[in-house]
């Protein structure tokens, strides 16, 4: 409790420093205000508690730590990523839709070929374990479709128990898939997401991170090469945090305003778990039994499900976007391609070498 309070105070001060407190929501969201800060003025806050929606805990992180070279990633015209491949890797069927669905849809629209990889079997959500795994399996495919992915994969490790699995084996399978699909870019849980209480998240983050570079080494699993695969290095990573607990270093804010509806559809497709799915139609039915209705939910289940997710569950992403002058946004720790150091050295040599 004390930790939360202290950090909360820190964030408020941070927001004041950026002047972002002037941005007020124009929607009737029940946004939770940040607590006033008791942080003495001689301290500079190291993390920020942004204004959050009161409608859902499963959206944006509780605290933000921003890098001073933060980049706003806007829409790019045309298909600048044509020929490139992304893999969005999630422990559970609702992680990618909630935390980075807008960015996945955006990158695919800009030319990427996308694949969705789910690592767990999601057995912890459902009427019985059997029903749960079946519904979440279906959902994973439907989420992939909603985001424009070419294909969905599931590894089916037991939900909430992945810290008991051999990470090297999961990593080996990811290396195989990254090589097979020739993946350039991944989106996944940040392996350094502080205070993430779900072990599946951390295992997935770690195995993905390790697989990204090892897939490029010919000494790792050389039998893959004999099977016709080629080594491939994943050069770009978008790491997202988990909410409500969890925060990572943020150096990229992606404008997903044009893709918010795709993100909403992906979340509606997620019926087996998470806060979205058919929650809108269920609420509509509940109100009808009481002789009431919410105009927001429209006149049919499809509209109700869509409107519910967009209005309530996407509110945090709207509030995050507001901080940066955007309609909706998602936050990431982005790691881009390394410079070609050898070429830089060669250029230096060419510029500075003198005759003997």
């Amino acid at each position, binding site marked *: 409790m004390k930790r939360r309070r202290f950090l909360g105070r820190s964030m408020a001060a941070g927001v004041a420093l950026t002047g972002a407190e002037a941005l007020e929501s124009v929607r009737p969201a029940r946004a939770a205000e940040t607590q006033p800060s008791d942080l003495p003025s001689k301290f500079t806050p190291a993390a920020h508690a942004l204004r959050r929606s009161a409608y859902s805990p499963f959206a944006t992180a509780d605290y933000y730590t921003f890098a001073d070279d933060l980049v706003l990633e806007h829409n790019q015209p045309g298909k600048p990523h044509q020929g490139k491949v992304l893999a969005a890797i999630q422990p559970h069927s609702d992680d990618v839709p909630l935390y980075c669905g807008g960015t996945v849809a955006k990158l695919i629209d800009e030319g990427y070929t996308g694949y969705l990889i789910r690592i767990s079997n999601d057995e912890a959500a459902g009427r019985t374990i059997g029903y749960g795994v079946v519904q979440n399996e279906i959902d994973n495919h439907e989420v992939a479709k909603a985001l424009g992915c070419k294909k969905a994969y599931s590894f089916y490790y037991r939900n909430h128990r992945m810290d008991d699995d*051999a990470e*090297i084996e999961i990593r*080996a*399978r990811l290396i*195989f*898939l990254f090589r*097979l699909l020739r993946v350039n870019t991944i989106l996944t849980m940040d392996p350094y997401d502080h205070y993430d209480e779900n072990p599946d998240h951390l295992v997935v983050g770690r195995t993905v991170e390790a697989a990204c570079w090892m897939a490029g080494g010919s000494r790792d699993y*050389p*039998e893959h090469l*004999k099977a016709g695969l080629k080594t491939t290095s994943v050069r770009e990573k978008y790491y997202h945090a988990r909410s409500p607990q969890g925060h990572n270093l943020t150096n990229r804010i992606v404008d997903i305003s044009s893709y918010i509806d795709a993100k909403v559809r992906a979340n509606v497709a997620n019926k087996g778990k998470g806060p979205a799915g058919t929650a809108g139609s269920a609420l509509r039915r509940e109100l009808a039994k009481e002789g009431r209705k919410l105009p927001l939910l429209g006149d049919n289940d499809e509209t109700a499900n869509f409107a519910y997710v967009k209005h309530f569950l996407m509110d945090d992403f709207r509030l995050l976007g507001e901080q940066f002058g955007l309609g909706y946004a998602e936050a990431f720790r982005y790691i881009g391609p390394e410079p070609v150091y050898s070429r830089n050295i060669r250029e230096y040599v060419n510029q500075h070498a003198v005759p003997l």
Partner: protein
Amino acid sequence: MDTNIVVEKDQPGYPHRGKVFAAIHAHLDDIPYYAGGLCAKLASEGYTGYIIRTSNDEKCGGHTTAENILSNEQEHLKMAAALGFKDVFDLYYRNHRMDGISSIEIRGRLILIFRMLKVDTVITFNPWGHGEENPDHWVTGRAVEEACWMGGMSNDFPEHMEAGIQPHSVRERYYFYARSGQPFNRVVDISSHIEEKLNAIVECRSQGGGNRGSELRARLAKQGRRLPLLANDDRTADREYARRFLLGADQDYGKEYNLRYAERFYYIDQRPPAKPEVDDYIEKNAVSL
């Protein structure tokens, strides 16, 4: 003589043409000693053979750990060539420490290789053999045994199918007779393949005693002596030393069956019958509606 023992002799022609075997061992000298004759025999009868070494052999060679890994790696390639293997796989798990690795990870790798090569037959350690004091041996045997049948299941590692690699079951197994008292139900006559076996053994210099002949020859020379058995060059010395001193077990295993040299195995045949039993039953018992 145990009447339940099958004596497998040379078969004329190429009865195994089109079939594939994988010899999976933990260390450089396992296959040469336990099954070098069988590997040579099966290859001569039409099989295509592949060899897989699971450890990095870092503990053997008498040099630094790194130098041992290198020397065993090089000798493994030479040994495999001597037995006519088409390709060599080295998995490089740390020697003597394989009971600490993830069993599912090594199994996954073997499943990929078995599927990729469409392996029909494996030759490896008996995972249930008693008296096995080397953890690398039973870890390898267990992983192979599990991979043999799981390789045939399409829901195990379905991503392999994405790469065009189809499910594939391994139906025949030859388990080594590696320690005294382990079970065996097959004695393989390797008399006509003993030269290939010797060729393989003498490549095992970092471990397995392949260079003992030349070492002995050099030692005697320093003393101003020589053994006629060891002839006048190192290669011959190694071969003849191995023939005279290192094949005693193979001679003993053969003696009981009037064979010059033999290797023992626990053989398991899981090939389906040409005609399923249910088809036979239907043929005999089906009546008109």
